């Protein structure tokens, strides 16, 4: 279980002479066990916010506190190991390693922990079973459909049992059926395993799966009605 707090977060990018500010003085709290959905137009800073939560990027101002850790103060050398212990990242594209099988892709995060081969096998099998792809374990990514690849990516995100899963447009490249499968999987992880999920999406149908939704526009957050509320 993990809670998240953003306090006066500002993030700027410099492109040539232009300074872009996708996030300006943003504050937000996400409770442990939430399925938080972030909506917004392209370039509104959704992915930037997600990257800050996942310790992939640092804010220029403000604090990002995840599970009690102020990520802005975490030394650079600790960020990678913090990510491996606390966050499972699901990208818009599955980003699987093409030369490794589905099994080996899912196993990747486990190499970061001192763990026996048998234990790794047990966890990878459970993760693949959870996403319904155990029988595809020996397949290379190119032998899988887009939906299957994304499910393998989800298995990779959950295999080390991180308390937080961040998903950046996880259904953006999928057909309806595959998208439904992925969203159902994320809902189950939230409900059955208590994972805190932060998902960025354009898709209103995907957004409907969240327990809480917010809109990010021009660097500012707007609270939307809870899912299911008329």
């Amino acid at each position, binding site marked *: 279980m993990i809670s998240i707090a953003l306090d006066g977060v500002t993030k700027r990018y410099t492109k040539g002479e232009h300074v872009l500010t996708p996030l300006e003085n943003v504050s937000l709290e996400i409770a442990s066990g939430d399925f938080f959905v972030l909506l917004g137009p392209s370039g509104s800073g959704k992915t930037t916010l997600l990257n800050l939560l996942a310790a992939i990027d640092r804010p220029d101002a403000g604090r990002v506190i995840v599970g009690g850790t102020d990520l802005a103060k975490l030394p650079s050398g600790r960020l990678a*190991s913090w990510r491996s212990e606390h966050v499972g990242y699901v990208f818009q594209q599955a980003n699987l390693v093409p030369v490794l099988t589905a099994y080996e892709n899912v196993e990747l995060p486990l190499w970061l922990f001192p763990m026996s081969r048998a234990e790794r096998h047990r966890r990878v099998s459970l993760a693949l079973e959870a996403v319904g792809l155990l029988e595809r374990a020996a397949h290379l990514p190119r032998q899988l459909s887009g939906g299957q690849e994304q499910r393998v990516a989800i298995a990779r995100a959950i295999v080390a049992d991180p308390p937080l899963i961040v998903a950046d447009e996880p259904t953006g490249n999928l057909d309806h059926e595959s998208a439904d499968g992925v969203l159902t999987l994320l809902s189950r992880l939230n409900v059955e395993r208590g994972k805190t999920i932060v998902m960025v999406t354009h898709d209103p149908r995907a957004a409907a799966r969240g327990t809480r939704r917010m809109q990010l526009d021009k660097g500012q957050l707007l609270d939307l009605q809870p899912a299911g509320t008329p």
Partner: protein
Amino acid sequence: MARSLPLDYAVRNLARRPLRTVLSALASALVAALLVAASAFVRGLDSTFAGAARDDVAIVLSSVAQRDVLRSTVSAGAGSLIEADVPEILRVGGTPAVSSEIHSGTNVRLGPLSEARADEVAHPGFVRGVTDRAFLVHEAVTLIEGRPGRTGEVIVGRLAARQMGVPEESLAVGKVLRFEGGEFTIVGRFAAPGTTIEAEIWAPLSELRGLTKRDDSSVVFVRVERPGEFAGLELFALRRLDLELVVIPSSLYYQELVAYFRPIRALAWIMAALIAGAAVFGGSNALNAAVQDRLRELASLCAVGYSTWALARSLAVEALLVAAAGGVAGLALAKVALHGGSIRIAMSAFRLDADAHSVLVGFGGVLLLGLFGTAPAVIRIRRISIATALKEP
């Protein structure tokens, strides 16, 4: 915590761009072979001169010859005078280890005069006029076939053919050579491992004197009882100013020869370094291209929790695997190419041998260069912006 990517990742990445991998491995093989060859050349050159040097042997030559044995002329009786005057001389079975010799760079023709053709070629050879006493001062010399030569006969070193640039069988026992107007039958072959002597032809001293119309010797080799005990010999040279002699310990003489060939050694290494540099540049470019191709994948591995150091290590493993595979092929190539090979240099020749030291230089060198070639890619990975790289197409 174990924080490295699995070895399988590095191994399988090599198959992603087979042509690039093969070309990099070929470049590594070439560099390894060149490093082995350069090392074998330099070691052969050094050991050839070092092998001929002995702490208990001095060379007596003309003080006006500027240490050039080919230009040196020493009175024919100098050897006998030294024997009589210098008590430290080693005696083997009562025979003093003093060898008066003529050293001559000359043109050697193959076959008897009766079979000579108008278009026959003269080969540059190094002929040493000696007596049986030469074996007392040049201990490295061992007859490996036949017997010592008498009048009208010669013995040849096993690298003499190579030095002259003629086929081995041309200098087999029983063959005939002609030089300085004389005709000689080869009656023996000798080895003198790791010395310049191995590329020489040994003829009877008195006969060579007659043919070259000399009544002197080039040098006198003197072996003393204890290493470095040349004071008596030097005193003799100082007292007999009329003979105009200078005494040089053979170790010093050959050291000076090694120094003389230093620019050639340097050139060998420079050539190897230039080619190695080009290979490193090529390999480095290939790795950089590999990083560019995989930027998003590498960023996603970072997002999973791998540090950029872990990615850099995996990349280094890839480079080392290619370098090692190429290195092994290069060593095999060098072994085959150098097998039985020898190099002609000035009036001598020496064997090329891919010994353990050269193999270590070749293989170790190529691994180091492989590692060095990863530097630009490693720097690039270390500077990777995960957020930006995740957006790469």
